């Protein structure tokens, strides 16, 4: 027995994608399995861990709580959009330098959450960073080095903005 397929058109990391999906395909599975973008991770599949975080129409979103069918016409950015091995985003560099990851499972979610925070609040306190990442669970680091990394990236980004201004 086959399920009804629905056509969707979605922009992912700047690329226009057209696919057919069954209604119950989760956005997290669509991104990983259909699009082979495995930077987005699936941790809990019920919206508590944040490993599946993507940016949907400009806002961080748990992709495990979104159906692919719902993003027809939308714009999505995954962690792959941040940078490349040879051209790291300042957040990625900071996580590297300040030991903001060990196993890396939570990291994509942390990076995108941090990106959204810093766009809204370029000079956060440690408490504000902790609050912002409170929906992203990490089993390895104890969070302090993640906060260190985000604070360092914030400073880098502020300095770059000043140079430009």
């Amino acid at each position, binding site marked *: 027995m086959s399920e009804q397929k629905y056509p969707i058109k979605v922009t992912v990391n700047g690329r226009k994608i057209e696919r057919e999906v069954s209604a*119950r395909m989760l956005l997290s*599975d669509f991104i990983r399995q259909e699009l082979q973008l495995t930077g987005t991770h699936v941790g809990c599949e019920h*919206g508590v861990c944040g490993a599946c975080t993507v940016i949907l129409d400009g806002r961080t979103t748990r992709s495990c*709580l979104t159906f692919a069918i*719902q993003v027809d016409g939308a714009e999505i950015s995954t962690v792959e959009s941040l940078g490349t091995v040879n051209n790291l985003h300042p957040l990625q560099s900071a996580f590297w330098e300040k030991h903001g990851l060990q196993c890396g499972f939570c990291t994509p979610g942390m990076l995108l959450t941090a990106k959204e925070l810093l766009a809204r609040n370029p000079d956060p306190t440690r408490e504000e960073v902790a609050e912002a990442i409170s*929906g992203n669970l990490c089993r390895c680091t104890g969070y302090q080095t993640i906060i260190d990394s985000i604070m360092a990236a914030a400073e880098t980004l502020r300095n770059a903005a000043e140079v430009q201004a």
Partner: protein
Amino acid sequence: MKPAHFDYARPRTLDEVLHLLASRPGDAKLIAGGQSLVPMMNFRFARPELLIDVNALTDLDYHRREGDALCIGALTRHVTLRDSALVRELCPLMAEAYRHVAHVAVRNRGTLCGNLCHADPASEMPAVMLATEATLVVQGLSGRRQVPAADFFQGVYATALEPDEMLVEVRIPVGQARLGHGFEEVSVRKGDYALTLVASLLGIRNGRIEMAAVALAGVADRAMRVPTLEAGLLGKMPSDALFAEVGAAASLALIPADVDHADAEYRRDLIRTLVPRALTRAAERAAFQPTA
């Protein structure tokens, strides 16, 4: 795990939504933010046959003052209300409660009205609706009706909504701004649903409490006001002793739930502790209101 199969529709108008709901009585669910529904679907606790996606009804994403009410439409996201200067001005109790609601990504998609329809017994906003005596505007094909918050929350995940109805708007009386608000919550982690929370409003005139609304959540199968507690406050002068007394009485009068991270004895302790704290803050804030 993965959700069960369902049919999907994304109507463009409220009228289409209502017709779709009526076409599958009891078997259809609305999805807006999906932050409470989709986890249940992923666990297969919820298995709607038809999922009606209302996110195209962007006209319902509004919050504004209309006369003596703050009106909030069905598609208004938590993040909008949490960041809103208008909400801070007109309903500071809601603004304060929002500091305890979920996390960034959940607030970006989740809607106030969706949260109210989900009716989790430990959720913050149902208690805020009770304390503010909000009206919930519900619509079906047969028309609109206005449901007082006191009648809306009927049990665990149970509300006054008929299967063919949608919650389209919440109306919060604006007289609130003159009252003092206090909100206290204890949860396992910040952002979780509450083990116990207290949402209170106090009106003080000539040094005496002339109005009191105290709503609790996390202690029963639904958010609830405590009439005996409120009656114990009216006409009295605010004091630590008074607040401690009503908190202790409430903790004995209620029979708190004995589940999930907190047994009944701990919850009684939370009631005994959080009620006076919330009332103290509400009394301080009521005292600072301009007398105009």
